[in-house]
């Protein structure tokens, strides 16, 4: 059973008063992560909205020791910290329980510039949780495309809509044979909470990706963050799943879409609510472009359904 939002601990590691936009999905997600991790954790960040939000030197809006490191190096830097803590613990220079080392990184720092370092940290199976909060663009620099930007989406560097589909980063991490991979999003806080708790209690490399609908980049009303997150899941544009030691299971409601018990809602309504898509969908080739986007979603659902069956 998924933990109810009413049962989440009162612990707050995201302090009130920080620089994020109202309705920021990254901050919302981090708040849930804080409840799951508690205070014995060390946080790494790369240049991103989450750094811009954390407060200016010497202030700090996240109640962990936080280190903002070079953009490409979340994976390798987290490896450095985790090895340092382990050896200092081994030779008695660090007392108490080992802190959880976690990286809190945008999709740019995960899919693109940080991919190499993340891949290597995963291949070494170094002990950390790598979170990607995925707002499907470089938001901090003013919304440019990333490898996580879906086809059709407007960004400042895809002025007529992106022509390529996004990567399936969760799947790429799964193929690194790490002990735990999960996807989540802010409309399902209990699901996110449970996944973080599971990751915290699993040694080795853990990857959790959180879809983070960002009103600024996606162009919707900032009060609709959670609704947008829910629509992404219900349309199948975002699938909730986890994989323990390589074996995939889907979480409600994605599990019903995968099993065929429920049909995914057509993507149109989800797209029309977002300025990043709807300007394209007013053009003469609108039907074709919606069909392409729907095609990408259908492909991912079908592919993940089959991928789950591979258990060897």
């Amino acid at each position, binding site marked *: 059973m998924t933990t109810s939002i009413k049962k989440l601990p009162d612990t707050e590691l995201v302090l009130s008063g920080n620089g994020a936009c109202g309705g920021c999905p990254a901050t919302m997600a981090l708040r849930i992560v804080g409840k799951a991790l508690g*205070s*014995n*954790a*060390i946080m*790494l960040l790369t240049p991103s909205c989450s*750094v*811009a939000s*954390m*407060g*200016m*030197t*010497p*202030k*700090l809006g*996240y*109640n*962990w*020791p*936080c*280190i*903002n*490191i*070079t953009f*490409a*190096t979340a*994976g*390798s*830097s*987290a*490896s*450095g*910290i985790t*090895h*340092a*803590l*382990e*050896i*200092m613990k*081994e*030779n008695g*220079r*660090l007392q108490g329980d080992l*802190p959880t080392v976690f990286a809190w990184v945008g999709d740019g720092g995960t899919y693109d510039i940080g991919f*190499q*370092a993340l*891949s*290597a940290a995963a*291949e*070494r199976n*170094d002990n950390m949780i790598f979170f990607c909060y995925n707002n499907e663009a470089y938001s901090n620099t003013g919304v440019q495309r990333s490898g996580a930007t879906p086809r059709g989406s407007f960004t400042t560097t895809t002025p007529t809509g992106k022509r390529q589909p996004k990567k399936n980063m969760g799947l790429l991490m799964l193929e690194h044979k790490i002990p735990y991979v999960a996807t989540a999003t802010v409309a399902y806080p209990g699901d996110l909470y449970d996944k973080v708790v599971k990751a915290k209690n699993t040694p080795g490399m853990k990857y959790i990706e959180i879809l983070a609908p960002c009103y600024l980049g996606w162009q919707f009303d900032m009060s609709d963050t959670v609704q947008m997150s829910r629509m992404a899941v219900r349309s199948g544009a975002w699938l909730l799943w986890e994989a323990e030691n390589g074996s995939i299971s889907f979480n409600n409601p994605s599990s019903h879409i995968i099993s065929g018990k429920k049909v995914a809602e057509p993507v149109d309504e989800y797209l029309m609510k977002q300025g990043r898509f709807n300007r394209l969908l007013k053009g003469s080739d609108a039907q074709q472009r919606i069909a392409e986007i729907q095609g990408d979603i259908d492909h991912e659902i079908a592919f993940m359904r089959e991928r789950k069956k591979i258990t060897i």
Partner: protein
Amino acid sequence: MKTAQVIMDTGTHAAALAVKSARVDVIPGYPITPQTSIMEAIAAMVESGEMNARFIPMEGEHSVLAAAVAASAAGARVFTATSANGLLYMHEVLHMASGGRLPVVMCNVNRGIFAPWTLWADHQDSFSQRDTGWLQYHCSSNQEVFNTILQAFRVAEQINIPVMVNFDGFAISHCLMPLTLPPQEDIDRFLPSHEPEWRLDTAQPSSFSNVTMAAEYAPFRQMLSDDIMAAIPLVKQAAQEYKDITGMWDGDTIDTYRLEDAEVVAFAVNSMAAELRLSVDILREQGIKAGLLRPRLYLPFPAEDIINALPQNAQVMVLDRNYNFGHPGGILASELKNVLFGRRNDITVKNRVMGIGGIDLTRRFMAAEIRAMMDE
């Protein structure tokens, strides 16, 4: 009391033994010739249990230094090594280490940089990282490499600034020379365990390197600049105390040979400076009053020590194994002129670039070059 042990060893292996003696905690690494054998030796010592440390096999040098910086921020004593393009690939993180005031020690085994591709020594790699805020030593023997790594940790941890220990590929890295290993208890006395003032500590959550407005940023940078200059007395003190404990001396900020009465002074770093002692002897035999001044510390550039050491009216022959692109000649000459200007107008500076990409620099060749420069 245990006595020192003398072995025959290569420069890279001497470096690895120094890292072991320094009781380093974390060593991220990545192979590149001629540095690779440092990492191989450390990996082997960690694997066998001879070193109580973590070796992290990284996927590239940018990540190597990122892991080093982060491990240092967690409170560990950290070492790594690289060469040439590996050092250049680290460039962004070099600044992160110094700006972040993290006392990482790194060997750079000097090698020419590509294109075109070369494997052999020159000093374009380390000198081109001058403005990254790292202290830089340049060493001219295997023993000096060993001694300097220990001194580097001492200085780095005193002022929270990373230190680069440079030495030449092949001429030092791969050549066997006698190496004296002081007893471990002496080294422990010289280099106590690392107790950082600040680290990532869950008992005291603090931020590192978040957005910093100019009013705070500017003083941080000023402090870094001031503290780099303040390293000079600490470098001298480290060399002196190392000598008091081990009896070994390689110079402090500078190293000199037959300098007191010299009229012609050779000025160079690294292995070519060791060879230049022999060139000085050749020139002396020819009746030329030659001497040698080797800046052991390149950054901070030991201006006062150089100004004080140079004899009156000397002609200084700067032999640069690098180019100062956009200017005629090399980088060392330009640094030297910079410090002499307005302070020692009696000194003449002449400059030649040589030994690029590992071209062999023999004592006779360099003696002849210096003679030729005298007539210029």
